[in-house]
């Protein structure tokens, strides 16, 4: 079958696929303009927009596939994969890869991006007192936050595994994962709320005054300890993530190994450190990496709780401030690149891990 002469590409097919391409651009362009200028009521706009987003994306694939099917088999086989991966590649290329390169480029320019300044921004960053604070805080976040999330997650997973109400307990610990950082910020602002006097409406100060202590403005006055009070929010939100994954891993530890160890007289603590930890070490590594990456990029909590004031600035909030408030594009870009450099080792570890797993 395949030895036959390859059929020629018909002119009609080329024209049709061109038409499909143009029609797609025209239709979606028009719909876009309609939404930009429309003054429909919000509910109706919402319904139409959702319809467009959902139907539109399927229609794009459908029409391009249809166009490709107009070609003979040997062409189709070569082109079709690119129809399938094309949109993903385009979106990623345009909105992630190119921007990363452009940010790198911008970081060598001055505030208004019109004069090449070489490494001046980088030099400025590392002599800046504010950045020193931000870096110190980021380190604190990564170190304290990750350590606490991982160890607490592991502890709770093990406790839950042996308790009589595992499901409920896990749901409770995991629940904050579903809450936005902004909402969590409000929740914790309320916990930390401070007003002078004996009557406190924030529970932390209420507890402190109940035991005869002085109420504190936890997130603004107590420097540098206020950072820890912000990190507690991260721990509250992310421990559930670590717990769920550890819990699954622990259940994967073969029961007969544990039984054998128990018969040999090993205590629960020894079993935990001697068998469980080594058995789930890859999981621990993955969870740790995920949380490290996450805490390196921390933004929302700080932004909502303190806005970066009182020495709680982190690199991401610094970046936001430099770029969107001071319009210092070069400096802002440099900060973004510093973040990227900070996660680079993690990218490499992840890729290596992925290859080891036989991903490719």
């Amino acid at each position, binding site marked *: 079958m395949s030895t036959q002469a390859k059929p020629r590409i018909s002119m009609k097919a080329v024209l049709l696929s061109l038409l499909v391409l143009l029609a797609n651009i025209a239709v979606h362009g028009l719909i876009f303009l309609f939404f930009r200028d429309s003054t429909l009521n919000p509910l109706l706009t919402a319904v139409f927009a*959702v319809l467009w987003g959902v139907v539109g994306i399927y229609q794009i694939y459908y029409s391009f596939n249809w166009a490709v099917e107009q070609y003979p088999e040997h062409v189709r086989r070569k082109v079709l*994969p690119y129809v399938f991966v094309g949109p993903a590649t385009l979106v990623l290329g345009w909105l992630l*890869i190119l*921007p990363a390169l452009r940010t790198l480029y911008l970081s060598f320019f001055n505030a208004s991006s019109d004069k090449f300044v070489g490494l001046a921004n980088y030099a400025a960053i590392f002599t800046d007192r504010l950045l020193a604070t931000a870096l110190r805080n980021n380190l604190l976040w990564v170190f304290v936050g990750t350590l606490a999330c991982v160890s607490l997650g592991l502890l709770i997973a093990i406790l839950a595994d042996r308790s009589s109400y595992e499901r409920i307990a896990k749901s409770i610990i995991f629940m904050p994962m579903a*809450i936005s950082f902004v909402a969590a910020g409000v929740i914790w602002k309320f916990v930390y709320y401070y007003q002078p006097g004996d*009557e406190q409406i924030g*529970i932390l100060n209420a507890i402190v005054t109940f035991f005869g202590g002085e109420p504190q403005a936890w997130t603004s006055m107590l420097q540098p300890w206020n950072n820890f009070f912000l990190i507690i929010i991260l721990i509250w939100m992310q421990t559930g993530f670590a717990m769920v994954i550890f819990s699954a891993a622990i259940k994967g530890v073969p029961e007969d190994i544990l039984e054998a160890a128990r018969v040999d007289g090993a205590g629960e603590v020894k079993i935990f450190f001697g068998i469980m930890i080594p058995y789930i070490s890859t999981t621990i590594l993955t969870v740790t990496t995920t949380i490290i990456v996450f805490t390196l990029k921390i933004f929302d909590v700080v932004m909502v709780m303190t806005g970066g004031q009182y020495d709680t600035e982190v690199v991401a909030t610094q*970046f936001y401030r430099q770029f969107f408030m001071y319009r210092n594009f070069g400096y802002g870009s440099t900060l973004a690149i510093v*973040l990227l450099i900070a996660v680079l080792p993690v990218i490499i570890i992840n890729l290596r891990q992925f290859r080891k797993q036989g991903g490719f």
Partner: protein
Amino acid sequence: MVGRKKRKGNKTVVNVVLGIICFIWLLPTLGLFISSFRPAADILQTGWWKVFPHQEWKAGETVQLSKDVDLREPIEVNGTTYTDDQLKAGVTEGDKRLVWENRRARTINMQERGWEVKPDFTLDNYKNVLSGKEYKLKLGDGSETVQKGTGLSQAFWNTLTIAVPATIIPVLIASFAAYAFAWLRFPGRKTLFVIIIAMLVIPIQVALIPILKDYTALGLNGSYLGIWLAHTAFGLPLVTYFMYNFISQLPKDLFESAFIDGASHFTIFSRLILPLSVPALASIAIFQFLWVWNDYLVSLIFIGNQPNVQVMSMKIADLVGSRGNDWHLLTSAAFISMLMPLTIFFLLQKYFVKGLMGGSVKG
């Protein structure tokens, strides 16, 4: 037998310790939840735990002192003397507490300790935060002020309009790509895939500035399409990775028989792969949906000040910034924004958990 008994004893300890941890974990949310139903004046005056029965000093008998008592001198009440400062703060005397009722009129109240519950609950906070209309607010000292509502209901619809397509678009794009990576052979396949995986850990801050420039040039800023595309790009690496893990594990014969029957790749994908991947699609979709729903940074940058596209997280962050002490608004607004994620969480917990694990531990 001894071993078993010992472990049973441990179990009580485990249950208690875990119970305490769970209580601590729940406490912050519980406080927010209860507060959001309390009248504005109550929230600002007393802690939310006061809605539970507790002991409190209640007003009792009033003692009238002679009008010309000198406040700088020790003040005699029923045979004992106190200072003015003591009476300002309140002094406990046996089971009574003495405190100024009206310092100028020289009256003292003998408070008595008793059980009390604050049972006042209201839906006003929710009403006021959802609508954009003006409303009257009664303060603790009895005075009234007029405040403007927050208009959160519009933000709710905006968030939904952004979140639904921003979930479906990346999941569909990623599934198509994952199918091609797993089952089609084409040049550049490996390189492309590795690049996508590497994107998993890129901080999105790196991409924001150039995207913003492009968006401004194209008029995409503050538009639904712009924000969908941004969320699509930022979610795509993880979703592709996840869907690849699933689709590449499907049995090979499945495709071969369909292919022999003359089905095209597109047909196989939409008639076979998508239905078979429903569990995976559901779990990653929930995850992406929650991510978009809860997002703040991306919206903050690509929506900016456009008031009619603002999402809830931005509205709430604004509230925190501008009216940080209006707890009646903050608590109810935060709870409204949590409603959707929490509902999804409790209904589809199983899938949500699966989605998390697929993204982070595989093999």
